[in-house]
Structure formats: C-alpha cells, structure tokens
C-alpha cells in the first residue's frame, strides 16, 4: 500500500490551517495596514528557515457555543527559524483567528516555545496582535497569561526576549512585553494600554483615541514602555535584525565580533564639544567619533532624551554606551533618564557587554515635580545598576561631573575599572556659581559691589576646582587624556578587561529600588 493517501491528507489538513482566519479576516487585516502573522514571521526570519509547530492544536472550550467553532492553530503561530544563520524561537499571534484572543491552548503554544527558547538558550521573539483574553474561556485565559509572565521572568537575563507590538495588546496582555528586554512599536499599528478608551469613557467621561492613549508615539516618547519606534512593519523588522547583531544569544556567551573598522573621518571629536560647559552639543556625535564605522544603534531614542543609551562596536566587539546629552535639559539626571539608563546597564551586565559611560552633566533636575515623583528612588536605580555590574566599566568625563551625578555616572567609587577625563572636565561638588555663592556668601554680601565680588569668587572657584586635576591627584581619575586619544584608550582598556573577574557576596538576589 502506498503512503500517498496519508501524505495527501496531511497536506490538505495543513493547507486548511495555513488559511488562518480565512480570506475575509485576512482582507480586514490587510485593510488595517497590517501584515498577516505568517508574513511577519517569514519577513523577520531568514528565507525558508521557518519551521512551525503545534499547527494542529485545537481549543477545548465547551461553553458559549465555542464547541462549534474551530480556530486554526488557536490564533497563534509558533516555531523556530534562523536570523543571519543563528537559531531563534518565535511566536506570532494571528489576529485573523478570533482576534488573536488568548485561550488556554493559545497560551500553551506560547509557553511551549518559551520553554524551548530557554532550554535551547536562543532568543525569543514574540509578536503581539491580540484583542486580549478569550472571554469564553474564563479563568483559563488568565491562567495562560500568568504562565507566560512567569516564563518571561525566568528567561529574563538568560536569553534575549524581544516583544513586537503589531496590533492591539491590551489589558493584562501588556505585561508580557513589559517584562521583556526590548519592545518594538510601529506607527498607527501598535496599541498598548491597561484600560482602553471605551472603559475610560464610561467611567470618566474622558474621550481619547487608542492612538492618543497608547499608540506607538505615546510609548516611545512619554511612557518609556517601547524601546524602538518604526514607521512601518518592515522598518521594524530591520530594527529587530540589527539589534540581534549587537547582542549575544544567551548570557553564557559574548556578542558576535565583527571585523574592526575605524570611525568615519567626518566625526572630528575635538570639533564636536564646545569648551564652554554651558554650551550644548549632540553627545551622539562623540559616540560616533569613537565607535567602529561611526555606527551607533540608539535605544529609546525619543524617551528621556537627556540621557543616550545604545550599542556600538569597538574593535569589532559590542559595547553599551550610556551618555549624558547636554543638548537636552543640559543632560541632567531625572526620574525618567535614571530608569532608562539603569535598565540598560543591567541588560549589558546580564549579557556580558562592556559599558562605556560618557559623562557631561550638571546634576539632578531641580523641581517639586521631580522630588514628588520620587527622583530619590529613581535616581538610586543608576547607583544600584552601576555598583552591581561586573562587566568591564569605563568612564570618560568630558566636561561637567558635578555632585551626586558624578558619583552616579559610573565613578571610581561605583568601581569603574577605568576613569578617564578630558582636560575640559570639571569634577566638583557643584557648578562654580552655586559653589561660590555658598562658600563665599559672607564676602559677597559684605562687599561694596556684591556682583563684582561674586564674579571674582566664581572665577576663583573655577580656577581651583573646575578641572580634572583635583580628582586626578587623589587617583579618582586614572589619567587625563586628550580628546583625540579617547578611542585608543577605550580600545585598550576594553582589551585589558577581557578576562575581568569581579566576585560579589553570595546572595539570592539584591533588593534594587524598583
């Protein structure tokens, strides 16, 4: 007897499932400007590398007429494939099947691929496009979410977890992306919120659109929930692939090295930074002036712009940059920028990525709103993250390093491995104006011309303390370097830190100021 009949039967079954929610639902998906779940998966992965599992899974719901409904794949696609030849696990919710709603079997498929990713130590990419819990399945869907969140937490810091929001992601569902390392959003397509516009309108009478409440811009500019913003799905997929070139496949590995390249000649480091510490410049140009091929991959570009984070390469190896941005809010630290930097530092530390810190900031943002929002608690996260990190940690002080900010920005006292300062560095308790006003208060008050006296005293303080040499004299700075030397010093210090061992007291885990 031939196997032909069985093979044909399998093909027929497969074909049926591959239709997802059927032609009408797919047309609707396309009309919303969205790709289908399967198109998304195949666009992200290497060509013909996708292998799907749990194709024939069916739900077991027996209430509210669900027993008569067949939901292909139960509304989610799971599988494995490769990106640039390296294996990844992936799941994609299929909005065309019952709105991508999450029921018991849907969740089981997701947790199956999550378990697999964790066991095989490969990155997990999750594409979210779902109306939320499948209400007909009651507490089973809640259980499903819970099982996903638990695994997100288990996998955190072991394998990279990427969440791609390509549709609605509402209610409890938002907490899976929130627990993962990187969240990608796309203009007009991504929508994330805990309670939607409908509920807000009923309860409060406030009218707001989905886009205004939890669209891509909101999460990349205001809430800080998203790390990457794109105009289209294809742009988003390119961001995912680019990110994966910078990070290791799991926490026991280093990121893949690339052939070293010099920075582009148009980034002239001495011409970027003004000598006057009150004048702004774009710190990203300094990063480009020192990183391979001037290629800087920025993360959270539009959130808390007063600090800049992202990946680059030095001598072909991935480096995480944390840099104050004098161009925005003078580069001060505040609640949002502390959160942004602290989480990134922990990411780098988890995944064996050396951290280069570029410092130029006048201190913490003053204001009642900052104090009441808890800048103490938020600011403490940076101290915690830097102190805790045991990857190579190198700091370059470019201009201002005042007060608590000096301590926080990976100072020697947070156990930086190397501390370099430019001759323009000002390492002091506070800026010259503020300091002179306090130290010489009496002299200024009693002077015949207080304003002239103030100027004189500010100049005196500047002369004495607004430089790197006081700190260098104490060994807090290892050496004062010319701006042009920055890249070479960094390359060298990363190279000699390659086998760094830094053991910490055994503990279950610390208690960071969440």
């Amino acid at each position, binding site marked *: 007897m031939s196997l032909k009949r069985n093979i044909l039967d399998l093909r027929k079954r497969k074909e049926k499932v591959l239709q997802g929610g059927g032609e009408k639902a797919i047309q609707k998906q396309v009309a919303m400007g969205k790709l289908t779940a399967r198109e998304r998966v195949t666009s992200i992965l290497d060509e013909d590398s996708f292998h799907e599992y749990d194709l024939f899974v069916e739900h077991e719901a027996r209430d509210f007429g669900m027993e008569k409904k067949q939901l292909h794949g139960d509304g989610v696609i799971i599988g494995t494939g490769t990106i640039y030849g390296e294996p990844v696990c992936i799941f994609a919710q299929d909005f065309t099947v019952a709105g991508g709603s999450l029921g018991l079997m849907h969740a089981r498929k997701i947790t199956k691929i999550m378990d697999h990713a964790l066991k095989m130590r490969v990155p997990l990419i999750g594409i979210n496009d779902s109306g939320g819990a499948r209400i007909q399945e009651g507490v089973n869907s809640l259980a499903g979410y819970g099982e996903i969140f638990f695994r997100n937490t288990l996998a955190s810091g072991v394998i990279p977890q990427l969440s791609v929001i390509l549709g609605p992601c509402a209610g409890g569902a938002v907490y899976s992306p929130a627990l993962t390392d990187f969240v990608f959003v796309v203009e007009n397509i991504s929508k994330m919120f805990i309670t939607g516009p409908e509920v807000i309108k009923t*309860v*409060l*009478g*406030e009218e707001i659109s989905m886009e205004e409440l939890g669209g891509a811009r909101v999460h990349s*500019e*205001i809430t800080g929930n998203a790390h990457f913003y794109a105009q289209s799905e294809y742009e988003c997929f390119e961001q995912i692939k680019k990110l994966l070139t910078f990070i290791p496949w799991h926490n026991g590995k280093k990121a893949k090295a690339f052939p070293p390249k010099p920075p582009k000649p148009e980034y002239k480091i001495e011409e970027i930074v003004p000598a006057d*510490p*009150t*004048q*702004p*410049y*774009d710190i990203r140009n300094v990063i480009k002036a020192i990183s391979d091929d001037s290629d800087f991959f920025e993360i959270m570009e539009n959130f*808390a*712009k*007063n600090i800049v984070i992202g990946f680059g390469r030095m001598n072909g190896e991935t480096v995480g940059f944390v840099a104050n941005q*004098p*161009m*925005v*809010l*003078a*580069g*001060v630290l505040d609640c*949002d920028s502390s959160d942004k930097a602290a989480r990134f530092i922990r990411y780098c530390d988890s995944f064996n990525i050396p951290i280069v810190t570029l410092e130029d900031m*006048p*201190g913490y*943002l*003053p*204001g*009642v*709103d900052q104090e*009441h929002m808890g800048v103490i608690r938020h600011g403490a996260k940076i101290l915690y993250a830097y102190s805790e990190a045991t990857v190579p940690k190198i700091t370059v002080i470019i201009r201002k390093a*005042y007060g608590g900010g000096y301590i926080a920005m990976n100072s020697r006292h947070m156990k930086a491995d190397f501390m370099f300062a430019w001759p323009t560095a000002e390492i002091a308790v*506070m*800026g*010259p*104006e*503020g300091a002179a*006003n306090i130290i010489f208060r009496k002299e200024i008050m009693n002077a015949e011309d207080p304003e002239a006296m103030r100027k004189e005293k500010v100049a005196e303080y500047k002369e004495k303390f607004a430089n790197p040499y006081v700190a260098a004299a104490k060994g807090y700075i290892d050496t004062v370097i010319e701006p042009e030397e920055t890249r070479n010093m960094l390359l060298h210090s990363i190279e000699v830190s390659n086998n760094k061992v830094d053991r910490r007291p055994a503990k279950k885990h610390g208690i960071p100021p969440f």
Partner: protein
Amino acid sequence: MENLKEFNVDGTVYKTQTTKKFENRKAWERPNPKNLLSFIPGTIVEIFVKEGQEVKAGESLMILEAMKMKNLIEMPFDGVIKKIHVEEGVKVPNRMLMVEIE
C-alpha cells in the same frame, strides 16, 4: 542647534533644548484643606448635606462610587458647607473640587 533655551541648574545657566514632557509638567500648588477634592475618578451616588449646613468632623458628606466600591466622603473638620460643586449622578475625574468648606 534649534530651540535653545536658558536652563538654570544650581545657579549656572545652560543653553539647551527641553522636552515636551518637561514643558507640560504641572506647577505645584499648596493643597487647601478647605477644598475637598475627589481622590479617585468615579460617580457621585448620593449627597447627604446642603450648602450652608453645619457639619461635624467625621460626618458623611456624600458617596463617591468608584471601581465598584462605594466610598463615604467624610467631613475633615467641624465647619460649614460653603459650596457643593457636584450633583448626584455626575461623573467626576480625579482631583476635582467637590466641596468647599468654611
């Protein structure tokens, strides 16, 4: 570089851009204990007092129902109800002035 503003940190004035979030921050106001504000968005279900009425501390003024919970709003100190800004059945947002007390 565009839209540079003057920005004072500890007496030093820096030239820098600001952010939307920074510009939209709300100025702090000293809370006035004579103004009773809603502490949660919800619906005024019932009002027990009238304007001009003398009320003792701890007495109930109204019920603010929110998240399926009926919250009794109490008089914070002995006083007279000067003005009631809400009616039964209206929805109130968070931190809305509900009652003024004298």
